[in-house]
């Protein structure tokens, strides 16, 4: 299952490296990661998509919280939120298929942001599903180049930042997906 986590961190040199290094070292699977400024000066906001199960994500959150520069972590997977991704796609065009492509882009509420004789750049903002859908269609015409931001998200409604305590201690009853049978001892001397 995919989880959406949001982390806020002090905007210090190397903080991104600390986070990605920790994720790599602990063998966590990141699908996407996006960083940018938050509403607070000096605090960056990072959105992760992590693939795993409840227990692993609990570990991810706790390990993130141990990174000194990270000030807060939230799991918004199960909370109503606005989730968006932006993609820029350069698609090959010919005189024959140009209008068809424009139509498809319009249906997906995308935008043509650059046009040349052989290609167009399409911009789309939306849920990952919508972005995936448009890309799937455009592949038929030949995608020359593409960039996706990865997921960014905001929880809907009002959020009281100070009061939300997000890392619940993992309780044994939470889920049983995780198997200990596969865990080996290290075999080191």
């Amino acid at each position: 299952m995919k989880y959406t986590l949001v982390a806020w961190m002090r905007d210090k040199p190397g903080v991104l490296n600390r986070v990605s290094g920790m994720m790599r070292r602990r063998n966590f699977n990141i699908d996407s990661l996006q960083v940018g400024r938050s509403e607070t000066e000096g605090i960056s906001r990072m959105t992760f998509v992590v693939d795993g199960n409840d227990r692993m994500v609990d570990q991810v959150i706790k390990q993130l919280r141990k990174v000194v520069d990270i000030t807060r972590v939230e799991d918004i997977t199960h909370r109503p939120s606005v989730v968006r991704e932006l993609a820029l796609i350069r698609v090959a065009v010919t005189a024959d298929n140009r209008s068809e492509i424009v139509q498809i882009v319009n249906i997906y509420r995308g935008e043509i942001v650059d046009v040349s004789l052989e290609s167009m750049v399409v911009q789309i903002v939306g849920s990952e599903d919508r972005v995936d859908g448009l890309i799937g269609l455009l592949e038929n015409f030949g995608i020359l180049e593409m960039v996706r931001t990865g997921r960014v998200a905001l929880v809907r409604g009002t959020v009281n930042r100070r009061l939300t305590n997000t890392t619940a201690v993992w309780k044994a009853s939470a889920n049983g997906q995780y198997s200990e049978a596969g865990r080996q001892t290290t075999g080191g001397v």
Partner: protein
Amino acid sequence: MSESAEKKPAQSPLDPGEPRRMTGAQMVWEAMVHEGVDTVFGHPGGAILPAYDALSAYEDDGRIHHVLVRHEQCAAHMADGYARSTGRVGVCIATSGPAATNLITGLATAQMDSVPMVAITGQVPTDLLGTDAFQESDVVGATQPVCKHNYLVTDVRELPLILKEAFYIAREGRPGVVLVDICKDVQNATGEFRYDMEIDLPGFEPYPVMDADAVAQAADLINRSERPLVLAGHGIQLGGVSKELLEMVERAELPVVTTLLGTGNIPESHPLSLGMGGMHGEAFANRAIQNCDVLIAMGMRFDDRITGRLDRFARQAKIIHFELDKAEVGKNVVPDVPVIGDLAETLPALLPQIEERRHQLWLQELKEWREDTTQTDIINFEVDELIPPYVIRQLWHSTKDTKEGAIVVTDVGQHQMWESQYYIHDHAGQLLTSGGLGTMGYALPAAIGAQMANPDRLVWAVAGDGGFQMTLQELAVLKQERDLPVKIAIINNGFLGMVRQWQQIFYDRRYTGTPVWSPDYVKLAEAYQIPALIVTRPDQVPAAFEQANNTPGPFLIDFRVREEVNVYPMVAPGKAVDEGIRRPKPVVVQGYSGVAPSW
């Protein structure tokens, strides 16, 4: 900055609220004085020279003593020994590039075992950063995975706060290593120093709030248990609660198994102590784990050395996990009752809720298992050959009456396991060893650090012939530090013993790369002007220890033990902890007055 200001015998420490102008180099030492650091372990070089120059004033008036190491790895191990034996933050210092990379093994060793440490390194000047300048290495990048936190300092204005944060982060919560990499020009720059600023680290939560409900739930489980067992780790010592632990286990009659780092959490001669569990734990300790109905894990992290095969670990037990570090809860073993918080808070909160109980049947069962083990334990037989368990037991005999107990520092390998099995640790914190990382070469330098911090205590380093040769250059420190009285026992079996044991058991006795040649250790010691002895027979052992203990200054004993001896019991990797290989029965052999081990 005027030189004269340095030479004046400054008040120590300076008023933290009064800003003073000084160089970055001086700030390093001024911060240490404020932190109560009296000893640092290090090695100089170009990028840290300004700091060394500023150190002279602090050395001259005795505020800070610098111990010169022979390899930077050992600076970290010494700071580690200093920190573990006192609970204070250990400090090591090195220059840039190769020196900083040399430190890494020592930092990782300390971080793995939750040892509070601050490491200071010099870095190339800020304008050369990133240019592959001479002796530049990305120290912050390289040490990030082995540190609790680290800093690169490029502006002298930030230095005082960074130093203060470094000590704070290293010490508070679950202790760990913080490295501060300081560019050379920052050391030379002048800035304002004060030390009364507030630390504002919104992301650092050293002491999570105790959950009183969880404590009550734990107490309830313990009170209702018929076959309870405490599994106590390093956290008991870090929390300073071994007294409270003893009070609790005596009141409710709870047997105690410890982890390697939890050795001595309750006195090992106490009837409720079952010693260490796990890979080389006694069979009765591991059986206790597998058969208890409530496992009270305290300040430990369910390392694979203690759990063995995870899905078969303590299957009959409800598990209560007392732990300060939230990330350890549920990482390896999912507890039924997690009790998050500092043991210094949670254990005293638990104590009044624990009822007086007796567990006669359970203890009787454990006693029978223990007697079963005793019958085959080689230590209970007279053996004509020199075998390591006997040497260790004699070390205990010769040091057991020492006030507060001797500090024993072990290296890594078979001797380390024998020490934990056959030395009877009656004091918490008596054993210093690299448990998490398993760093060979740890014993001698860590013993030096412990001795520097505890000049009046008896300190023994116990090492194998392999590990000792990894850091033996530090013998020079014993002399340079005015005959520092560290005693050294080399358990010399001609092999990298623990690896040889694995080759014997899992690789059909193909001893590839494990026979290890040794120099004549007595001559070696002589070259370092350290008195030394060779011991080859059991009957020489007591007198040798006596002589070592009674000789002022350092002493080295080379114990030429029987070569192919294995550590038992042994739980092979991937096996459950009660599937261990038991000790073979000693056999009577012709020509011996007693029995011979059948290894």
